[in-house]
């Protein structure tokens, strides 16, 4: 007991001294505040492999969306802060427009950054609000056991939604339980599937034809697929987990959220393009950007880090660390992780397919980016999970969508045709 007391006393003294001492310790380096590369292994790799080549100190701190945003808002609110560089999804950065500095004067050192993505980084304005950092997209993944259940005559690299439904049905019939999985959990990236895959594949639109007859058909198809989808899907957020446990055999997800399965058991899984509908094979990139908030303590250092992140060598190292693909043109060395090879081939097949119908990420929505996504998520939850009437839900969600577009004043983006003023919802 006296030992315990002694320990308490020591602790008290140590706490008191370090509390006083702490405020004097300050970071020399740049604080890199990110929502990506959060899994401990990836964070470790970011620090040790990616950022170790940067001359100068970098403190890479990944965090959950809530704390990430709150910390940033607090620094902006206080007018001073510690964050030097932000790294997050396009969808997170669009709401921050005014609080990000113009990066058009950053010397990228000759790195050829994808121009479409650079354009996205302007957020519909003239200033370069973020520089693209890395990209990914959604593909399908399957356990090789599933292949024998493919419908007759179907080519796994050129599937249609109808064939996918039939395949999922075959698997369910053969195994007695649904083997298709979809990341509809709280952290799953489902909204981008509806926006960038389902809608473009059936309506050749994302916004304008939200409540069209074609959209109704798309949702009905998805409902059909859902019958053969593992009901646990509403809890899935990273499909690699369920593929590895073989809870599901075929899944749709973001490449970096499938990477774990490919890397752990490269011989057991394949990747292939998303399916196609009547208006082509819709797909959409996931873009992660780096930006500098107006409160960055050391602008120069922050911009230097931004430039470092798009250097081709850094981009390759980032790919190995996070399974996100480069946004600059570069040769990939041969010693890439299995996930990169497997999903890279599927992406190439998808974008090179004859019926490819690539969409763009939303721009110009500002703070309403979240509400925009919620329209699609709500439609899913009401139609598919709640079993409400498709027509009625689309009509009522279209009202909300129109409100969002008008309030934001955002013009259309691909595949919707360009508009004068806010993108209309027919």
């Amino acid at each position: 007991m006296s030992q315990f007391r002694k320990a308490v006393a020591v602790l008290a003294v140590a706490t008191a001294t370090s509390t006083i001492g702490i405020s004097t310790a300050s970071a020399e380096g740049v604080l890199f505040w990110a929502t990506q590369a959060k899994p401990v292994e990836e964070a470790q790799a970011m620090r040790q492999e990616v950022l170790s080549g940067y001359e100068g100190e970098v403190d890479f701190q990944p965090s959950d969306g809530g704390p990430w945003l709150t910390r940033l808002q607090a620094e902006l609110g206080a007018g001073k802060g510690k964050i030097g560089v932000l790294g997050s999804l396009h969808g997170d950065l669009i709401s921050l427009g005014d609080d990000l500095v113009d990066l058009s004067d950053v010397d990228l050192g000759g790195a050829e950054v994808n121009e479409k993505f650079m354009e996205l980084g302007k957020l519909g304005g003239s200033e370069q609000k973020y520089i693209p950092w890395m990209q990914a997209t959604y593909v399908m993944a399957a356990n090789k056991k599933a292949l024998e259940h493919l419908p007759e005559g179907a080519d796994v690299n050129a599937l249609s939604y109808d064939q996918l439904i039939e395949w999922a049905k075959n698997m369910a019939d053969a195994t007695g339980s649904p083997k298709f999985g979809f990341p509809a959990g709280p952290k799953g990236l489902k909204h981008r599937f509806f926006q960038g895959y389902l809608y473009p594949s059936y309506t050749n639109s994302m916004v304008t034809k939200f409540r069209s007859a074609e959209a109704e058909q798309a949702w009905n198809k998805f409902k059909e697929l859902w019958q053969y989808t593992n009901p646990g899907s509403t809890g899935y957020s990273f499909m690699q987990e369920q593929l590895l446990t073989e809870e599901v055999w075929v899944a749709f997800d973001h490449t970096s959220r499938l990477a774990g399965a490919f890397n752990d058991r490269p011989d057991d899984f394949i990747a292939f393009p998303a399916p196609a509908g009547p208006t082509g094979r819709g797909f959409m990139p996931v873009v992660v950007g780096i930006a500098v908030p107006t409160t960055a303590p050391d602008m120069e250092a922050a911009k230097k880090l931004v430039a470092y992140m798009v250097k081709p060598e850094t981009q390759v190292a980032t790919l190995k660390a996070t399974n996100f693909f480069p946004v600059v043109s570069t040769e990939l060395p041969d010693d890439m992780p299995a996930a990169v090879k497997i999903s890279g081939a599927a992406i190439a097949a998808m974008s090179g397919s004859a019926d490819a119908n690539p969409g763009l990420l939303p721009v110009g929505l500002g703070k309403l980016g979240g509400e925009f996504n919620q329209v699609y998520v709500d439609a899913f939850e009401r139609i598919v999970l709640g079993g409400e009437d498709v027509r009625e839900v689309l009509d009522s969600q279209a009202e909300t969508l129109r409100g969002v577009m008008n309030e934001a004043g955002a013009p259309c983006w691909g595949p919707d045709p360009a508009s004068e003023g806010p993108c209309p919802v027919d």
Partner: protein
Amino acid sequence: MSTAPNMVVGQSKAARWSFNIAVILLCLWVLVPIYLLISNALSAPADVNGFPKKLLPSVNTESVEFFIGFYGVTKALWSSVQVAFLTMVMAVLIGAPAGYALSRFDFRGKSLFRIMILMTRAFPLPLLALPMAIMFIKVGLDDTVFGLAIVHTTLALPFAVLITYSLFSGIPIELEEAAWTLGCNRLQAFIKVIFPLVLPGITASAIFAFVTSWNEVFAAAVLTIENRTLPAFLLQSLDDAPLHLKFAGGAVLVLPALLFLFFVRKYLFSMWGIANR
């Protein structure tokens, strides 16, 4: 030490047996999930992902070693300990006097005060974090162990006040009055007579303060950067980690808290003999 109010001795064998069985069942109810956590933290990734899962997996410390060797874990652990300790001290020092006042005096605004104390726990902290962080950045408390301990103290304070309040209320005022008539002043009476009686309650509030701080993620993730606490450092990224690392990280987080509970548990009972006079 005299024994507790006895409800079993002298009863039939059957009653004693059912008592023992109930206790064992309740222990299992608590321990089985903990066992699953620890055993999975100590198994190979392939076992963790396999099905059907084995209940007695082979031992493989790879996942746990990964965490222990993870950059910054020791520092985060130290920050966590400091914050939790400060929180504990502040919550008890500020909370116990308030608890005593609530139990011993009648004054205007008493109910109001109790409700206000509770509001700190009834309002979602993630929303309060923003104005608090702005305030901390402005006054320089941001990213300090002390600053975070302040936030955690506001969370722990309701426990400290209410627990000590209910404990003080259970102690007859006559005891104190007796001490006064024997020549003690109010403070002496408190220290000599009341304090030993409420030590279990103070321990209970200290435990709450400690574990509240230990397990708090959100404010820690917002308000600390260089002085990240262990949960802010590990826990918020566990969701995205592969299954075997989830278990290992969960176990690494739980162990220090269990050690703490082990050390203080006896104080919950320490003065039993006196309490039963």
